[in-house]
């Protein structure tokens, strides 16, 4: 605690009269600090929140905004002072960092800084004076400038004193004391230029009168010169006396004025020498004085008495009256009586001198204009109470914190913690207090915020060094200040952001960035907002802005594309990590970029990833799917792989389930999707052997086709049958096990109430529970009876049936309800063609399973069985073996129950496809279609377009595919072409260019008469290698001659066709 508390509390409060609102009963005043600078708003409010004021409040319609006068920063010159002194301040901080006032060099450097400060103040003061003189037409402004100038000048004087006493290096106190005294005397002289003026006047008049001593100021000047220690000047002046050459007294006096001068050398020896010399000289003076040499000349006698250090002489009114201030008197006394005394004398003798000085000037105390130099402050300095001095100075200067802040900082660097008048490291606190206040005063000026923050950087107590924890930076005044600087413009925002970062105030930096982002968001500048939000590292905000981007897009794909093409997204690659939405936007942009760049496969990859990762909000799925439509519908090129298409399908299924998109738009996508899937699967030669998970996807695809395109559905169902067939029991087992788990995929089947028989495996699924009423897969060996007869019941006794289906018949997952209701049930009792042993086998197997305890458990824990490969009983090999055995005659048949019209359609379609098909009508209304070879069957199945199952639900048409052997060798032919060139011709041509093509990679299937063209149409299959070769070949030459049905299986119906 500082010592002068009592003194400071006695200081009168500054009271300002302001037009505050008047207070009536029931009203009260409110005061609110503005965050910007030092502004207080005063308003009138109700007294208590719950009571209504009695007065009619007609006069309450205004607020009064009062502010801390920041006049110091109002004038350009003073702002320049602030800016330039900041530079010096920074220099000081660097020095201080090196070593706190310890080494001589630092002290010298600090002294230089101090002088620089003073030079700045001096410059400023004179500049202000000049502008005050210039501003004659505005008396108020001129007065203000003049006032400020005087204030600065006074400050400079004080600063000089502080510099002499505290800043300048003090080598050894004993040796330095006389030197400091001299400097002090010099200081007093500098700021009291009176004698020089008098002398000048004197000399002027001397020219006229020839007797300067008659001038009223002659002796006064002489005394003053002596008081200021300028004995040489005094002698010169005395020599101007008209009697100087004649009167012995004058000659003696002039001799006595040869006062020994102390010259500072760095040893104590010189002090002693000077002391001796001074004593001898003063003794001489006294001897002569006591001898009465000057008695006849009272004025001269007084002069000599002063030289002799006579206390009474100093107390004489004419001497005291000469002095401008008590400290001038004090210094003179010290100089002449005790020049080698230590600095303590200053404080000791000060009261006496002050009393002397005030004796003659009772009213002087208050009359003195500027309160700075009235003595209190100097007295404190002489007493060594620097801290108290600063406090008082701050009180005197009011809102001008510049002086105390800089001075306190300088002193802090010079003296470290041990300063007179402060205890316990209190000086650092003083310094910080002033720095804080100075910064705060600069807040009012928007242009000065950087300076303000820079000062705060060096508040080590309240600042960042205060707390050792890493969070300390978060609570510093810099932060309080930086987040309050309004980031009005981009540039300023950048500056504030950089300032925060430079100080490690990351949190504040984020706050600033967030604020700017928020503001830009409100204004609708999304790009800008996004940039700042990313800088703020705020995922929520980034997501929100990304949402805005997407929202602005309006949800349709065009808008989405527009949003994605925004420039702001161009350079935000890294920002994608911050938010899913952002990542989506970036990926979406990538998708469009790739599409426009023609990298379709890559684009498809991006789209599929986007949808499969569930990264994007669901409401944008449809947009993305629609964006994919052009890619899906590309005829000549399979852009998507089947796996990717499955991803897309899952997304679509979820969409449909969530029921959050218009159904018609979904259907469009669905149709394209299933179409594309079919093509892709054929293209890839989709393989089922280990694809039990694909099975699920196939089922899903089936579901899609169900509402989109019956042709696709049937084709896919057939794929399902093949998949089930090749995966065998493993997949069906899995089917059963995972029915619950994968209900997500199966749910779409709920509307499916038809019965399918497609092989030896039978699934029974109810609409409400298992989504598929029944799905049967029956694969039978070729049976001539089946072709000829309408009823094939005895095929059950053929050895191939258990071989084909036996080992792999699973337990239908939800058969129990069915069997309870109808123990002897056959799923579709009406369908004659399906009354084969497949069902009996199924039923038998089911009974078997009922006996095993394991099935119950399996049913209860379906999730554990999702991996079919875990099933130890994999009957696949057995399957293959039996197939090989029964491969006798390749006859491929489809046995189906359908109306005549449907069959006609079918035949028509197959005619268009050049498929030779035999239709045999059974007595019970079912139809058996027979194909020559498997390729034809495959083609036909793929194009079962005209059997529109949706229209014949009452017929429950079961479809039985009969075939005699495992998947055909023509599987390896990826592409089918038909044309008029012979196969030999093509083979020769391609082989000539690509000699290493495998010989069996091309195969002719069928030759038919070409329609509307001469010659024959050749129908042939190409393996992958051959197809590539064909594509690489000079295709244009062939196109003219060839009727090329590229990827025949993917062929689309001609426009205007019946459906």
């Amino acid at each position, binding site marked *: 605690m500082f010592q002068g508390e009592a003194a400071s509390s006695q200081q009168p409060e500054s009271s*300002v009269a302001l037009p505050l609102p008047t207070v009536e009963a029931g009203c009260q005043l409110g005061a609110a600090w503005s965050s910007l600078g030092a502004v207080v708003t005063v308003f009138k409010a109700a*007294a208590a929140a719950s009571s209504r004021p009695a007065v009619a409040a007609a006069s309450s319609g205004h607020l009064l905004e009062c502010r801390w006068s920041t006049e110091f920063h109002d004038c350009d010159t003073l702002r320049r002072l602030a800016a330039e002194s900041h530079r010096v301040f920074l220099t000081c901080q660097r020095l201080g960092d090196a070593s706190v006032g310890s080494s001589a060099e630092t002290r010298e450097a600090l002294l230089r800084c101090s002088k620089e400060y003073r030079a700045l103040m001096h410059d400023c003061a004179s500049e202000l004076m000049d502008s005050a003189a210039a501003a004659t037409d505005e008396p108020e402004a001129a007065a203000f400038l003049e006032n400020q100038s005087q204030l600065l000048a006074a400050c400079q004087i004080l600063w000089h004193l502080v510099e002499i006493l505290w800043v300048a290096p003090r080598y050894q106190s004993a040796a330095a004391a006389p030197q400091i005294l001299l400097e002090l005397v010099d200081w007093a002289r500098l700021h009291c230029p009176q004698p020089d003026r008098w002398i000048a006047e004197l000399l002027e008049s001397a020219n006229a009168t020839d007797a300067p001593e008659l001038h009223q100021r002659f002796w006064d000047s002489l005394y003053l010169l002596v008081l200021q220690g300028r004995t040489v000047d005094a002698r010169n002046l005395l020599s101007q006396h008209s009697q100087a050459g004649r009167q012995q007294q004058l000659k003696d006096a002039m001799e006595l004025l040869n006062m020994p001068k102390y010259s500072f050398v760095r040893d104590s020896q010189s002090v002693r020498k000077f002391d001796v010399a001074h004593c001898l000289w003063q003794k001489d003076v006294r001897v002569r004085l006591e001898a009465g040499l000057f008695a006849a000349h009272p004025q001269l006698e007084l002069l000599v008495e002063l030289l002799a250090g006579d206390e009474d002489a100093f107390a004489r009114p004419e001497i005291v009256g000469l002095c401008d201030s008590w400290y001038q008197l004090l210094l003179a006394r010290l100089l002449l009586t005790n020049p080698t005394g230590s600095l303590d004398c200053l404080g000791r003798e000060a009261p006496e001198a002050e009393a002397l000085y005030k004796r003659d000037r009772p009213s002087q105390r208050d009359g003195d204009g500027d309160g700075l130099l009235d003595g209190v402050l100097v007295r404190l300095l002489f007493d060594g109470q620097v801290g108290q001095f600063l406090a008082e100075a701050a009180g005197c200067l009011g809102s001008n914190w510049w002086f105390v802040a800089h001075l306190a900082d300088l002193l802090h660097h010079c003296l470290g913690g041990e300063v007179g008048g402060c205890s316990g490291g209190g000086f650092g*606190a003083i310094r910080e207090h002033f720095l804080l206040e100075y910064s705060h005063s600069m807040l009012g000026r928007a242009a000065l915020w950087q300076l303000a923050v820079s000062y705060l950087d060096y508040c080590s107590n309240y600042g960042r060094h205060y707390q050792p924890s890493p969070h300390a930076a978060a609570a510093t005044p810099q932060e309080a200040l930086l987040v309050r600087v309004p980031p009005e413009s981009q540039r300023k925002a950048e500056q504030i952001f950089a300032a925060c970062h430079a100080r490690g105030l990351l949190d504040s930096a984020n706050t600033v960035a967030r604020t700017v982002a928020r503001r830009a968001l409100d204004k609708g500048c999304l790009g800008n907002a996004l940039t700042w939000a990313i800088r703020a590292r705020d995922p929520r905000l980034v997501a929100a802005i990304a949402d805005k981007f997407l929202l602005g897009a309006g949800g349709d794909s065009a808008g989405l594309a527009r949003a994605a093409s925004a420039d702001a997204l161009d350079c935000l690659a890294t920002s994608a990590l911050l938010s899913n939405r952002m990542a989506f936007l970036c990926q979406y942009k990538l998708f469009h970029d790739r599409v426009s760049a023609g990298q379709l496969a890559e684009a498809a990859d991006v789209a599929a990833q986007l949808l499969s990762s569930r990264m994007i909000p669901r409401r944008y799925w449809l947009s993305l799917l629609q964006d994919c439509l052009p890619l899906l519908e590309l005829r000549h090129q399979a852009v998507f792989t089947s796996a990717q298409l499955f991803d897309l399908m899952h997304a679509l299924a979820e969409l449909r389930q969530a029921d959050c998109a218009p159904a018609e738009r979904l259907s469009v996508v669905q149709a394209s999707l299933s179409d594309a899937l079919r093509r892709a699967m054929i293209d890839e030669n989709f393989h089922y052997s280990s694809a039990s998970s694909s099975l699920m996807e196939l089922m899903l695809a089936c579901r899609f086709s169900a509402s989109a395109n019956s042709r696709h559905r049937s084709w896919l169902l057939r794929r399902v049958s093949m998949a089930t067939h090749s995966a065998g029991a493993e997949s069906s087992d899995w089917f059963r096990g995972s029915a619950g788990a994968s209900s997500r995929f199966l749910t779409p089947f709920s509307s499916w109430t038809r019965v399918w028989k497609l092989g030896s495996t039978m699934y029974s699924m109810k609409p409400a529970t298992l989504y598929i009423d029944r799905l049967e897969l029956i694969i039978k060996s070729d049976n001539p009876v089946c072709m000829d007869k309408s009823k094939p019941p005895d095929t059950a006794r053929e050895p191939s049936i258990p071989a084909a289906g036996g080992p792999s018949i699973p337990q239908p997952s939800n058969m129990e309800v069915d069997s309870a209701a109808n123990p002897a049930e056959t799923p579709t009792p009406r369908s004659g063609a399906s009354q084969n042993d497949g069902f009996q086998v199924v039923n038998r197997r089911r009974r078997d399973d009922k006996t095993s305890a394991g099935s119950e458990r399996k049913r209860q824990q379906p999730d554990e069985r999702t991996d079919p490969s875990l099933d130890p009983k994999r009957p696949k090999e057995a399957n293959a073996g039996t197939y090989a055995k029964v491969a006798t005659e390749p006859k491929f048949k489809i046995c189906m129950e359908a109306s005549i019209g449907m069959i006609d359609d079918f035949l028509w379609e197959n005619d268009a496809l050049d498929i030779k098909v035999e239709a045999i009508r059974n007595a019970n209304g079912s139809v058996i279609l027979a194909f020559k070879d498997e390729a034809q069957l495959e083609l036909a199945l793929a194009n079962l377009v005209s059997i529109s199952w949706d229209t014949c639900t009452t017929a429950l048409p079961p479809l039985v595919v009969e075939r005699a052997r495992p998947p055909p060798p023509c599987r390896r032919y990826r592409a089918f072409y038909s044309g008029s060139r012979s196969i030999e011709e093509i083979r020769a041509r391609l082989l000539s260019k690509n000699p290493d093509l495998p010989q069996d990679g091309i195969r002719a299937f069928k030759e038919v008469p070409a329609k509307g063209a001469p010659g024959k149409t050749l129908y042939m299959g190409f393996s992958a290698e051959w197809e590539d070769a064909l594509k690489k070949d000079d295709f244009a030459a062939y196109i003219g001659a060839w009727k090329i049905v590229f990827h025949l299986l993917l062929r689309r119906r001609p426009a205007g066709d019946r459906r």
Partner: protein
Amino acid sequence: MFVAMKSIPVQHRDLIHDVAYDSYGKRLATCSSDQTVKVWDLDSDGEWKLTCSWRAHNGSIWRLAWAHPEFGQILATCSFDRSVCIWEEVTTTTAPSAGVGVASIGIGGGGSGGRPLTTTTFEKRAHLVESALSVTGIQFAPRHVGLQLGTCSNDGYLRIYQFSDIMQISVLYCEAIHTKMKNCSCIAWSQSRLHPTLIAAGCSDAGATDAACKDSFQVYELQEDSRKFAKTPGVNDLQFAPSLGRSFHLLAVASQQISLYKLRLSTGGQQQQQQSGGMLLQASQSSSSLDVGSSSGSTGRYALSCIRILEYQRCQMSVWRLSWNVLGTVLASSLEDGTVRLWQGNYADQWKCLTVMTP
């Protein structure tokens, strides 16, 4: 030295109850008994321009508060009609209608086509009606806590509203604390991010004789619901000072004088808390409420000490409102005698009256 800068004619038709600056001091909101809220913006000439004025409640609006701008331009108001409203600024820019002269006449600029016309409105995002009586105090939490709003009302409840999503500020969760104080009048959040967040609530009911109501301000720590209180008659306002790297909370309480309380996390207090079985209420040592300066409670984890009473010439005078400056170095207070006094703390915890603004 304080000078009157300007007088702002806010033209409320009734008493103004509160004035709130935003974080940058560039925006001002006023509320009044005439049930309207007005928002003012500082233009480039340094003049306050009315941006928006709307009727916000069906009763006198007591207090209002701005959220930190990083959450957007959000204003909260509380009213005699027992509700709290959250308002958000919505700026709509309408392009000047090109062909139609009538629409663009007022905008000025005439032949040059006119700039786009922006209209600022404040839309009500939430209307909180949990309180059973008039809501008298409102303050947003410091920004490091996120977007939270504290309110206190005459029914004695302290409610803390949390905004679950800053983009969807209409969704709030409410947490209520029963203070058992009648006529809660003011609420304040502590500002320091280095310490657990505290909420102080004060009640203005000086004449309460009920034992449960004898303490007239309470301090809660949010997580642990630790409660501190001290007795001062009729707390009119209380404010936490900006933290400024202090190791303690500084709470100014306005009653018959201004008391400054230091709230410091104490290590020794924990045993005491255990002794009292987790309950944190404990009367402060002095029974006379006038010498709070000597009183200090040390219950719970916090040591509460009154460091200084700011008073003027030793006479008792009601202090109505308090406001800290940005750095927490100067406290503005309005007094019963119609003056505004500024108190400044210095380096040695000496608080002295810096300026008296007299009518």
